[in-house]
């Protein structure tokens, strides 16, 4: 699937990951989900293209943030469609991509 949109998290959202929900402080996974991930993902699905998530330069990658954003998206939309429409880029630490994909594939687990 062709990539037509990119979210550079460190540039558009913030350079440090918070925790899961709004009550956990700034830059939470839920905030990222509401403000960036969900709207852009919906557009990608409608436009039948892939959305690239650029994680480079984003400090920290706690599971609470990932489950609060990508895990929640997977719960809402289903793992397959999320994996079909999301691409990841993280040259500095490719394990972050593996972790995100693991959470998307297993969104129910903590």
């Amino acid at each position, binding site marked *: 699937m062709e990539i037509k949109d990119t979210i550079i998290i460190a540039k558009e959202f913030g350079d440090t990951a918070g925790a899961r929900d709004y009550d*956990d402080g700034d830059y939470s996974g839920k905030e990222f989900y509401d403000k960036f991930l969900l709207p852009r993902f919906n557009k990608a699905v409608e436009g039948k293209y892939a959305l690239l998530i650029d994680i480079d330069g984003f*400090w920290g990658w706690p599971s609470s943030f990932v489950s*609060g954003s990508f895990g929640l998206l997977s719960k809402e939309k289903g793992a397959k469609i999320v994996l079909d429409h999301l691409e990841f880029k993280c040259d500095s630490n490719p394990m972050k991509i593996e972790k995100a994909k693991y959470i998307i594939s297993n969104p129910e687990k903590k």
Partner: protein
Amino acid sequence: MKIFLRYFLLPAVTLLVGISIGLVIRDIPKFSMDYNIKITDVFSIILTFGIGVFIPLLVKKLIDDKRTKNAHLFEELSGFSKMTVNIHDYMQDVYNNKKILVKDKDYINIQMDLLGKEFNEFHAFMMENCPKQATDYLNELKTCYIEYWQISTSIEVIGSSIKKIDDKTFKAICEKYTEMNKRIRRIKTEIIKH
């Protein structure tokens, strides 16, 4: 007396014994000497000598190479193990203190991030160099590591309302840690076996 024995009598006796053996061999018809040497015989001798020297050297080199490679693999495993031990010890201290501060949460978050980078390099190196029999365990180790990261940076540990790591969460962290170590030991066993 010793000097006489060593420098005169012993060489004289050796010489006499040598001459006697030579005479006996010469007079026995079974031992006939052909003083004409073919050029192929020369090559044959050189080849035999070469094989005699080359094979043990080759075997020694192969053994040394394998030993060196295994030492590198063990070193990689130990390096990764050491990092996990450090993080786990820190978490254990936080749990024992029954108090988790913001700086502890940040530290855990940062260390888990660094461990992820390290794991990525470590996993790629091991997949390339480990015996094929260890591949399954390496993939299991990756899953165990991700599950360890998942529970260690979960909302139950780094959530803003969390003031201490509860027993249930710490037990889950320890279980994942043990699973990781179990896989590391299995990989070591496979390296030793092959």
